[in-house]
């Protein structure tokens, strides 16, 4: 087993995995990682990840617990830095700019690459303020009417407007779980990011709310690029265009073992471990 891993590792040092597979359209890559490794203190959480994310596509990150999916996702908009001991090596290229270059402000990165979290986390403020906050802190200056307009547009795009239009002054936290998560999505898209990262956005929701979020993702991807971490195989199969399969290496760091179109991953994966995982044999 270790021998096998050494071989794949060697191959990868010369060629990034995404190009090696030849599955993505190079001209339409928005976000790309190059030999990205993330450490928490001395512990290496992900190892040498080379992935490309296509514009206006949904890419799913799947794999068993602890394989570094969330860490990889959070490294893409530098959210990992909120953990004091976290450190990244390698590069994340966003339209050719390395997000880890010394002159890059992580605050600006996160405005362009938004995030939706596992547990719905609306601010304990009104529904209206939840949306407006992101604009205000980013220096948006405009009339009240324009703000009303953006709030409505964001809520409409998140398929929440009809449910909340009469109670915009109510607390965001008073909504149901599924509504809260759609509010969080509306909040994320209000600041017009290009990429939206979703960290298991449906794991705290019931099946009906989950379905709504999935429909919403398929709608949103026309304007945004979505990267989603999910434990739910069916979800990855239903919504995503590309899938990256991650596994834990013997040193407990996570790596991408296979990346391809979702169809290929779920119908004829190249790696035996991917096949076992997507068919529910482990994890």
């Amino acid at each position, binding site marked *: 087993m270790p021998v096998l891993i050494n071989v794949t590792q060697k191959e990868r040092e010369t060629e990034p995995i995404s190009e090696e597979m030849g599955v993505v359209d190079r001209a339409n890559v928005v976000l790309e990682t190059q030999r990205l490794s993330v450490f928490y203190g001395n512990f290496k959480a992900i190892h040498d990840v080379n992935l490309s994310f296509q514009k206006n596509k949904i890419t799913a990150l799947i794999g068993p617990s602890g394989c570094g999916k969330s860490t990889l996702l959070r490294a893409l908009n530098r*959210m990992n830095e909120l953990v004091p001991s976290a450190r990244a090596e390698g590069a994340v290229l966003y339209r050719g700019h390395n997000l880890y270059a010394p002159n890059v402000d992580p605050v600006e990165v996160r405005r362009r690459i938004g995030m939706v979290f596992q*547990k719905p986390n609306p*601010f304990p403020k009104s529904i209206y303020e939840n949306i407006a906050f992101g604009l205000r802190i*980013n220096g948006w200056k405009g009339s009240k009417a324009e703000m009303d307009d953006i709030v409505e547009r964001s809520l409409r795009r998140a398929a929440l407007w009809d449910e909340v239009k009469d109670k915009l002054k109510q607390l965001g936290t008073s909504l149901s779980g599924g509504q809260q998560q759609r509010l969080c999505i509306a909040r994320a898209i209000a600041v017009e990011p290009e990429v939206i990262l979703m960290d298991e956005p449906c794991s705290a929701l019931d099946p009906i709310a989950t379905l709504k979020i999935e429909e919403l993702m398929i709608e949103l991807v026309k304007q945004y690029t979505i990267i989603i971490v999910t434990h739910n195989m069916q979800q990855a199969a239903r919504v995503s265009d590309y899938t990256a399969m991650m596994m834990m290496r013997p040193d407990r760091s996570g790596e991408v073992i296979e990346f391809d179109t979702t169809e290929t991953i779920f119908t004829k994966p190249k790696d035996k471990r991917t096949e076992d995982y997507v068919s529910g044999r482990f994890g």
Partner: protein
Amino acid sequence: MATSEIRRNFAPAEDMSFDAIQGSRRLKGMLLVAFSILALAVGVGMVLTLLIDVLVRGLPWLDWQFLTSFDSRFPERAGILAAMVGTALTIVITVIVSLPVGIMSAIYLEEYARDNWFTRLIEINIANLAAVPSIIYGLLGLAVFVRFFGLNRSILAGGLTLALLVLPIIIVVSREAIRSVPNGIRQAAYGIGATQWQTVWHQVLPVALPGILTGNILAASRAIGETAPLVTLGALTFIPFLPKDLLDRFTVLPIVIFNWSSKPQREFHDVAAAAIIVLLGILLLINLLAIVLRQRLRKQF
């Protein structure tokens, strides 16, 4: 195998007497409960005795004249006007100074400070400062505010000294309140491009505010009851005038109580009881305010 071993330690079912075993065990439990009730009774009894004694002796003296008069050599003319004004002004200064300093310190320690030996040293020191006897703060105030800054034995010096005294408490409770803010809120703010300060100011602080304010009010109520540091500082015991400004000399309720109760005349002891009723009333009101405020602000969630 394990089960059979456990079984061996019990008496066999046929010769087990339910009453004996249950009886002795229950007796132990009942003894403990009885002891707890006794302990509680001692505490509550003491407070009740004190309260009843104070009310019986003080209430007859508590009237409008008492609240609006200055101190006097004659118990029937003595009042607490100067002391109440002194207490009010001192506490206002204490709160104005300690609130922002305490909250900002707490924000720094919770949100900004890196976890290293220096931060830990500061934390340990703050925890220790909260336990330093209040009279030491009086000496500190005397040396720093009265002598070094030349504020004399003024309201300002007294308020600043009390501010130092309650600062560690305020920092500890404010940190506690800030720490209890769910991390999801911080992540949400960062996730849409908020800076650290925007996150703290617009999202974390408003959520932590009920806890911070409650802690601050309770700290202020502790400052109101403090006597030792102000005695050390040299606050007056007898003043027949109202302070002209914050650099004027002053007295506070606890000091007046202390003064009256150490007088030989019995009547003054009863007048002191009346002042104690006022002081307790103020403290009760403040604590009530803290509870109401917390309930009010908590409802926002």
